[in-house]
Every structure is written in C-alpha cells, then in structure tokens.
C-alpha cells in the first residue's frame, strides 16, 4: 500500500528533494546573516536624535544609581569625610579599618565593603555614553541646530560631571575623550588640572547650547552652570565661580523655595524644609529649587524605576530595633509592623550602615535654636524614640511607651552597640514611603543632585576664597533664613563654617568626600592658610592635606582607638585623600601605565602624567 502511494508520488518526491537542495545551495552568503531581532546595534540605531538621546538617558540612569539601593555608592562618599562612618559593626569587610582595607587589590565594589570601584567603573561608563554621543553626533540628522546643540551640550555635561568627580576622588586619571571601539590597552594618566581645564572649556561651550528648561530628571542649562561653578572652584578660578553661580541665582529659572508647597502644604505641624524633601514634591511645579533631580517612582517596575528604590532608611537610619534595653533590663524594642507603637512604619528598619558622626549629628547642631533642619519631627535623636516591644506592654512594664535612655544613673549603657544602634538622623530627608515592604527600607522616590541651596553655598565659598566675607555670610544667610536658623555675620565665615553649613543643608545629598577633597586641593594650590593655622602644598598632598586634618579634627572615630563589637578598629591615613586606582584597570592595561596614587602599593611604577591633551 505504502509502496504504491510512494510510487504514485515519485515525481513529486524527487522534485521535493531537488527543491530542497537548490534552496540550500542557492542562498550561499546571505544564509549566514542572522540579524538580531530583539535588540538594536549602534549601526542601526544611533544615527538619529532619538538614538543619541537614549544614550544620554542611559547616562542619567547611570548617574541616578549613586543615590539608590543597598550599599548606595553615596555612602562611600560620606564615610570618607567627617559626616559618617561605616556602621556595619558585625563583620570584617566594611570600610572601617581603612589602613587595612583600602587597597588597589581589595574588594572595592560591594555593599559589604565599599563602592570606590563603583565610582571608577560606572563613571567611566558614563564617560563612554557621552563620548559615544559626541563622536556620532554628525551621523544623525537633526530637526534643528537647537536640538543638535542641546544633545551635544548635555553630552558634554555628562562627561564633565564624571571627570569632575573622578578628579576629586582619584586625582590624576586617564582622560578618554572618544568612544573606544577596539581592545585598547595603552592608556596613560593625565594630570587632574589638565582634565579640569578641558572640562571647564567644554562646560563653557555647553552653557549656551543646553535648553534653559528641561524635563525634571534631565539636564538643563542651570545644571551645567552649577557643575561649571564646581569646576571653576576646583581650578581656583574664583571670579569665574562667582560669575557662573550668579548666572543661576540671578537667572530666575531656579530660586530657593521659601513658601510651603506640595503634599503636606496644609499641615501646620510641618514646614518648608519638610516640604522640600518630600519625594512627592521634588519634581512638581511648586518646587523651584531642584536644578538636577533624578527620578524614581513606585509603579514603574522594570519600566524606568531603580529596582528596589532608595533603600535610604535601611542604609542611614540606626539599627534601633535591637540591642536596646529598658533601664530594668528588658529587651525594649521591636521592628514588628502593625503593633500598638509601630515605630518601624514611622522611621523604617535601619541597619545603620551610614552612621552619622558626632560631628554631623550633634556638633553642628549646638546652636540650632529654631533651625527647621534639627526640629523634632524633622530630626530624631534616639531619645525621641520610645520603648515599644509588645512584651513590655503585655507584662505591664512601666517603661513601655517611655522615651529611650542610654545610661543608667550609674553610667551603665543600656545599648550594647552605640556605633550601629544609637545616633540621630534627619527623618525629613530619609522618610521615603515604602508600601512594598512591611518593614520599610525607604522606597521609590526622586532625589536631589543639585539644588539652589548648594549654588548659594558654592558662591559663598567662592566669596570666601576671594576674601569677601560679607558677601559669603549673606549667601549663607539666604540658606539659613529659609530654615529659620539664626543669621551669621561676616566674622563667622571661614571654611569650617561653610563645611558645617554644607553638612547641615546637604547631608546625604552632596558628594562629601568629593567636595572636601576639592577644598583640600584649593588649600594646597593657593597656599592660603587654613583656619587650623596650617598651609598646604601640592608637592606632598598625599602625606599632608586639609582633608585628613579636618576629619581628624572634628570626628571621633578614625585613629581614636574606636573598635566595632566585631573587633575592627577605625583607622585612616592622609593618603586616603585620593582613593586607590583599582588594580584591575592597571593590570589589564598592559601596554601603558595608569598611575597609582601615592601611599598605595604600585605607586612606585608611576610615570609623570600627561599635562597636555594629545592632538588626535
């Protein structure tokens, strides 16, 4: 039967074989061109304004990541300054014993260690996005010159933003100004000042190119001017810094927000400082202050959000829910949600990774008076919390609901780890609603990168360096008046005061290590005597600098013999003013020399850095 069928269809059968054979041999070359279907490649997607804008939006995503997630990179900026230390005290590895742990070969990009390597890798990725846009600009056809200029200007901003940070974090670094499309291994280091000069030039070019008004979450002209002000200061060009910051302050596009606004505007218990830092308020029209805001919202999972959100309460709120006893020796605290005194929902389940120092939580608030930034409700000290454990309630313990106490009358502490579990914090900044976690970690919300208050403090600093203390005091007072803090006079102004005011206003916003190092460089470059009586020089920057002296002066952790309960001691050295260049970059660069910073192993192989930019 079958045989018969096949016999009948023999002709068809042979034709089938023939067609298959021909079909195969016929499509020779094209047959192996299996193009990607589900992703774009540079050759088919970067030759349009939309493609280039997508790279710049990626650069914004990359910039945003510094302020979000577990072990957010910004914490490393804080702990390499006076404002915070690493508070994860139950293990070795977190950056506490800096002399021991901060090495080129060490773990440099981990929530359990530090994020030095994150800054290195991710900032160079940001530079790559910018360089790709700059290099491919002429491949695209634009609707207008204005559109082209705006794209170019924002790319220049992104590149300068990274190089400004890298040069304060690492000093001299390799300068890459083009998209690298091959396996290049012959990079060399360029001097910090040379890089900053180039960035100053680029930003001056970008100012007229970038649109004055942009969507929140993207770059506008004032953001360029704000960054330019920092670069001007870093180069010691104080007049230029005054000019660029004045352009923002006088421009009127962004102004200090002084009136109540936003979601809690009608709540008489709150104030403008509270309003300013509500994540719901950072990108609304009543907010005139945000110059550069990064956006993260609930409900945009895998669709533009930062996965997991800020996590800021987990990072920066103390671990208040354990190891704290009542004066009669009972376990006092509970992080259970939904109990009668539900403190975890109110302030979040902190783990005290970013532990504010005595300096940033006590010292700078000594004469706070009416300062909104330290007002109860905006700010919490541990003594403002109460014993809330349900076991106290059920046993009828009299301390239930009473405020915490740290010591018995005889001086016995009631908290077994005062590093991690006992310090004050600015609730008005850290309160980010987190409906996805029953024990809140700090959820999704926008974050300030640049705002006008800092513009005033930068101009105040520029006036200070120029010796115009009256103008400096007035700029500082603009910020202080808004917070209802007492005004200061010209006589109060020195760099210490400016740093204090920055800590009060910009805690967990500014890159503190970056800014403190920038100031240390200015002292070294200008030779101007610091308030501590010392003068500094660039010649021995890694052994004697203002950054180190300032931290030693005002903080009570590093090199003071303080040890964690795990036994790790807080140490620091002057050379930590510049972070180690990750060894992976040096080792992979086999055909060139990327310099290591002094004080770290490998610096003996350094060659003099480039002080000019080679012509391509």
């Amino acid at each position: 039967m079958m045989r018969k069928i096949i016999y009948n269809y023999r002709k068809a059968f042979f034709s089938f074989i023939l067609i298959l054979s021909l079909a195969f041999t016929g499509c020779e070359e094209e047959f192996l061109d299996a193009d990607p279907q589900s992703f774009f490649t540079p050759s088919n997607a970067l030759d349009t304004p939309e493609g280039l804008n997508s790279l710049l939006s990626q650069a914004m995503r990359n910039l945003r990541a510094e302020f979000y997630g577990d072990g957010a990179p910004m914490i490393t900026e804080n702990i390499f300054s006076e404002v915070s230390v690493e508070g994860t005290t139950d293990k070795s590895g977190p950056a506490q014993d800096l002399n021991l742990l901060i090495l080129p070969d060490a773990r440099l990009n981990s929530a359990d260690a530090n994020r030095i390597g994150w800054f290195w890798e991710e900032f160079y990725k940001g530079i790559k996005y910018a360089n790709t846009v700059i290099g491919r600009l002429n491949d695209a056809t634009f609707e207008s010159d204005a559109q082209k200029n705006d794209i170019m200007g924002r790319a220049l901003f992104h590149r300068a933003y990274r190089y400004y940070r890298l040069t304060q974090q690492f000093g001299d670094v390799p300068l890459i100004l083009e998209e690298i499309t091959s396996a290049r291994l012959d990079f060399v280091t360029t001097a910090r000042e040379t890089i900053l000069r180039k960035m100053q030039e680029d930003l001056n070019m970008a100012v007229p190119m970038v649109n004055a008004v942009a969507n929140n979450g993207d770059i506008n002209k004032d953001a360029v001017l704000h960054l330019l002000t920092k670069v001007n200061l870093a180069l010691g060009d104080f007049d230029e810094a005054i000019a660029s910051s004045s352009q923002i302050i006088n421009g009127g596009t962004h102004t200090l927000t002084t009136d109540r606004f936003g979601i809690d505007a009608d709540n008489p218990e709150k104030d403008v400082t509270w309003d300013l830092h509500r994540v719901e308020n950072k990108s609304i029209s009543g907010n005139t202050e945000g110059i550069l805001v990064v956006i993260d919202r609930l409900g945009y999972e895998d669709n533009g959000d930062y996965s997991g959100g800020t996590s800021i309460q987990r990072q920066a709120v103390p671990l208040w829910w354990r190891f704290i006893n009542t004066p009669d020796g009972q376990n006092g605290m509970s992080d259970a949600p939904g109990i009668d005194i539900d403190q975890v929902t109110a302030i979040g389940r902190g783990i005290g990774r970013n532990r504010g120092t005595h300096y940033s939580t006590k010292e700078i608030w000594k004469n706070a008076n009416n300062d909104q930034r330290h007002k109860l409700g905006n700010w919490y000290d541990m003594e403002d919390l109460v014993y809330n454990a349900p076991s106290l309630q059920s046993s009828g313990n009299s301390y239930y609901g009473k405020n915490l106490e740290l010591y018995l009358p005889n001086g016995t502490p009631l908290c077994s780890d005062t590093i991690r579990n006992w310090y004050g914090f600015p609730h008005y900044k850290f309160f980010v609603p987190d409906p996805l976690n029953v024990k809140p970690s700090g959820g999704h919300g926008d974050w300030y990168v640049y705002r006008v208050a800092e513009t005033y403090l930068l101009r105040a600093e520029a006036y200070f360096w120029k010796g115009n203390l009256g103008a400096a005091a007035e700029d500082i007072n603009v910020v202080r008046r808004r917070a209802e803090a007492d005004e200061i006079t010209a006589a109060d102004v020195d760099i210490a005061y400016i740093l204090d005011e920055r800590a009060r206003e910009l805690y967990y916003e500014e890159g503190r290590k970056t800014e403190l190092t920038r100031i240390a460089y200015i002292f070294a470059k200008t030779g101007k005597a610091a308030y501590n009586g010392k003068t500094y020089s660039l010649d021995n920057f890694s052994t004697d600098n203002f950054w180190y002296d300032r931290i030693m002066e005002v903080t009570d952790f590093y090199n003071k013999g303080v040890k964690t309960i795990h036994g790790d001691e807080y140490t620091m050295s002057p050379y930590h003013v510049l972070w180690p260049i990750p060894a992976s970059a040096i080792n992979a660069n086999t055909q060139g020399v990327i310099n290591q910073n002094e004080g770290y192993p490998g610096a003996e192989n350094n060659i003099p850095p480039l002080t000019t930019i080679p012509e391509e």
Partner: protein
Amino acid sequence: MAGNSINWYDRIMQTGFRNDINTSISGRKGGLNYYWSIGRTSNEGIFDGEKFEALRSRLNLDAKITDWLTVGMNTQFAKRNEGFIAADRGQIERSSPWGSEFDDEGNIRLSPQDDNGAGAVNAFLAQKFNDRIDLDHTFNSRVYAKLKLPLGFSYEIGYTNRLEFQEYYNHALAASPQNVVGSAERKVTKINEWQLDNILRWDKTVDKHSFNLMFLVYGEKFQSYETRARANTFEPSDALGYSALELGTVQIAESEDVTSTGDAMMTRLNYNYDSRYLLTMTMRRDGYSAFGANNKRAYFPSIAGAWTISNESFFNSEFIDFLKLRLSYGENGNRDIGRFTALSKLNANKYLNVDAGGNVITVPTFDNGTQENNALRWERTKATNLGLDFSLANGVVEGSIEAYQNITNDLIVTRQLPNIIGFNNVTTNLGEIENKGLEFTLATQNINRENFQWNTNFNFSLNRNKIRKLYGDLDENGNELDDITNQRFIGQATDVIWGQEAIGIWQTNEAAEAAEYGVFPGDWKIRDVDNSGDFTVEDNVFQGHRSPRFSWAMSNRFTMLKNFDFSFEVYSNWGQKRVFNEAKNRNGFIDRTNSIQTPYWTPDNPINDYARLFSSDGSSSFTIWRDASFIRLSNITLAYRFPKPLLEKLSLQSLRLYANVRNVAVYAPHWDFYDPEPTNIEGRILGDDGDFDTDASLPTPRFFTFGIDLSL
C-alpha cells in the same frame, strides 16, 4: 521549648522514590522495519517536594520501496514536567532547631527564628505559596530517503526538524508572608530548529583497493521566540493568578527572538588496501552566523592512517590476535559562543522624566554594553593522535593506548579590558593552548569457566594543558606578557590556581606578628611573598590545579552459575583542588542563624586548618583551596537472568531481575564536607541562574534501584 526542637535535616530531606518504565516493540514486515517505544519516568529528589516527570515515545519507520529507494522517518515525542518546587535546602543549615514553622495561630511563619533578614526563611514558603506549571514538549522528526545510484554511487537526503514548546506559568501568592503583593507570570518559548543534509557516496572496490568517497552539503537554522508577560499587585485579589494577568495593576511584557544559521560542506575519502592499510582524508568548510562579519566560515582538513599489523603476512603470532597502529592529524572548529557575541548590543531600557505638568514619562535608554568584534572567528584545534589497539590470547586481553597532542589556536575567550573603556570585556580569539594526554584502556577476561566468569575493564587518563601564546604583548626583554587580570600565564595550565596563599592560622604566640597585618590569632596567615607587609598581586603564587591531574575507572563483572551477574564500578579523580572557604568560619551570621559546624580555632584549640569564628581576612583577599581527590565506589549491581527453559514455559524471551546501588561509598582523604565531586553523579545540574550548579554544599544522593527487564 522543653524538648521541642526541629531537626531541619529530617524535615527537608526525604527518601525520594523514582520509577522508570520503558516498553518497546520492534519488528519487520516485508520491506518495513518498525520500532516503537514509550517510557515514563517519575523521579523524586532528596529534598522535600523535589520531583521530575517525563513521558517519552519514539516511532521509527524504515521502508524499502524498491531495490534502489529506501525512505523512513524517526519521530520522537517527549513531555517533561518540572513544575515541582523543592524545599529550600539552605535552611537545613540556617534555620534554628529552636524555631518553629508555625505561629501560635497555626499560620506559617516567615522565619522560624523571626530573623529573615539573616537569611533564615521558612524552607517551605516557596512550595506552599507558589502555583506553578513548568512544562516542556518536544517533537523531533527526521525524514530521509536513500537512493542507490549506478556505478557505486548512493545518495541520502535527510531533513530533521525539532520543535520545542517551553511553558512556564508561576503565581507567587500574596498570601505568602514573604510577599507584599501577589505576582504572576507567563512565559512561553517556541524553539524551531531544522537541519538539512545531503550526502553523496561512492563506493568502489578494485581488487584489494577499496575506495569510499563522501560529499556532504549541510544547512541548519535555529529560531526561538519567547514571550514573557508579568503582572503584580492584583485587584481585587490575586486569586486568579497567572490565568488573569490583566487584573494586575503593574503589567510588564517582554519578548526575545533569536535566529542563527549554520552550514557545512565536506568531502571525505576513505581508502583501504587489503584490510591492512587505511587512509582517510577529509576537508570540510563550516559556517556559523554568530562569528564576525568577515569570518563566518572556516576550513578544517584532516588526515588519518591506520596499519593493521596483524593482517600482514609476515605477522605470525600465536599470542597476539590483533594489532593496529593508528596515526591521525585533524583540525576542527569550536563555535561555542553566544549567538550575537560579535555584535555591539544596545541594551534598551527605560528611565523616567517628569514634565512641566508633573506627569511622569518613561524615556528610552540605550546602554552600549558590549564591544563589537567583527574579527571574531572559529576556534581551531589541531589534533595529533597516535594509537595502538590490541587483542591478546584469543581476546582474553584487549585494549588500546592513545597519546594525543591538541594545539588550540584562536581560543574563544572573554578578555578583560581596562574598565575605563566602559566595557568590561570583549569576546575575542587569543593565543595558543596545548593539550597533551595519555589514555589507556584494558579489558580482561580474568576467569572464564562455565559457572564462573570474571571480566575487568580498566581505563586511565591524564591530560596536561599549557598556554603557549596569548595576545602577543611583549615586555622589554621580548618575552610575552602574562594576562594577570584573566589569570592566564604563559607556560601554565588554564586551570591553574593563582592567588594569595593561606598557609595556616596565626597562633596566640604570634599575636604581635599578626597585628602587623591587621589581624589576630585565629585568623588565616597569608604568605607575604615580597615581605612588604601588605598584600598585592606581588604576593600571588601558584597553588595547584582545579581539574584532576589524572583519572581512572575500573569495572568488574562476575557471572556466576550462568544466571547471576554481579558487577561493581570504581572511579577516581585525583589531584584537583576545590574552594573551601568554609574554613574561614564565617558562613552567614553565626550569632543570628544556625550554621554547619566546622572545626574552629580557639586559644585552647590551636588548630592550623580552620580559622576562629568570624575570622578577618585583614587586607588580603584569598581563597582557601583543599585537595578534593577521591575514589568512589560508584555502582554495585546484582542481577538474575531467568533460565531459558523456564522462560519457554512462560512464553518469554528474556526476564531479568536486578538490584543496584549507586554512589555506594566515597574515599576523600583531604576533603571533609559535602561531596568532594561538585556535581550530582547523574550529571551536572542546571541551576536557576542558567549556570551549572557547583555548590559545595550540594549532597550527592545514593540511589537504590530494583528493576525488571522483560522481553516478550
């Protein structure tokens, strides 16, 4: 808690029952050969809830239509069900015996000891609060036709089609204490792959010369289409799970389609003279779409010769029955790369903006995450092989000895780049690696009597590899530079271990010295090679190899009283090292979770191979390596074959009963943890992340099997 403790090992581990039933029929009628089989497997694993089910069936038809035409079809159908969720085995270690699975109201607890933050989570949450379908259907078919043509030519064409449907539906219930909202997903992947081969053969024998010429033209195409839809935060509730994704307030749709193509042409000539001299010459050209635009195709020649010495007229040995010498040289290619590795991929994602009206808008992002490499080409191995096959004393001893040298050029590797480029690595071809080795197999009939036979098979192998060239970067003396970043060293093996070396534990009387390195007695002592007081790449040393230095296997089979078979197998891997950071004694949070107790240093227990609890690495970054050499008694089988006369009465062709135990025992003198072999003995397990699981804490099950083989 008086006496109430939970043995989590007992709660989580189980004795898994496995059953496997296979039935087949085959036969021939006229010119039609047929074969049909069906099999069902239902295997439980050693962890609670772990299970795997499969159903397979195969039908082969081969019809000889005429003297010159044969057609046929082989079809296979398989259904695999992996929608079972095992208990979290990590909780054997982490969950506290003093904790509890349920709270006072009888609800399941998130964490037995109320500390999920430290990783102590109820082991049964995933299986209790997930509703899952994970099915895989495959249909494989091959249709072929064979034609006999005049003058010794024959032609065969075959078309193979593989169709696979993978379905994954999962609903993570909001009711789980682990979840704040319910989430569900549906993922469907269709894979379609075809291969077409045309083979023309010519066979010719002239006197003692016999020729066989073959010409192949081949093409293949792979296409997969994946659709993934996810949703979470369901309203009014998540009761309908993945069956009503539209009820989720957050909706995510994803898709990924992939295509690749390959082709090949080959010519092969076999020449045989008088069954004494054999010569094979092959030339093939392979093409694969994933390589760089200019290098998709490559040519691979090979040549092999053999001389059957025992067929020579001068060879006249009573003792040696068969002796054959083989020599071959061949080049072959490796195309084991991702389908789009050579391209620069713009990873598309989203970022958020807020417009002047306060509206959130998503904006697209492109991350140029990989570098393009248009030069990416086939990896090529030049293999030289010398072999000797022999059979002695009427087959009482048979075996072969084989020596080989493989030189691989243009290795496909991921090369680390200076990360300042913004790309961490690029897939590229590099250098030259030499593999050489020796393999030896021997089969002996030790005893061959009517009521007792004993056969032994033994094989031994060793392989050595060495990097001979890398990228060609030279130092000032003209010597080639090592690639430290990727741990590739000229003259060293690819699996060499290189790093800071743990040489013991700092003891109490060495406290001062330890302090210079920022550590304490009880911490690991690291070799400071350059005595610099700190640890850098200068302190790295070679510390042995990851893969076995040599391996052997032996099986013995005894047949007693004609119908009893007894056999056992032993194998060994020797000389390899494995990571054993458990010796740092800081796995998890010792103060918050349970953990496996390994020996630990104390001032009163000044051991030298395990650190104190929660030891510090100081400024060093090191890995503890332990010798994982082992000998395993891998299999014991006892079988009984029913005698013929009995079978005839029962109208059976054969009946065999057997019992077997696998993984009977293992001897590992230096390894004191879970199994020394980082794999399941059934083969490697694909982990959730898509990588093969080499978890040191993965126990190897012991299998007991009882079986019946029956032929009608």
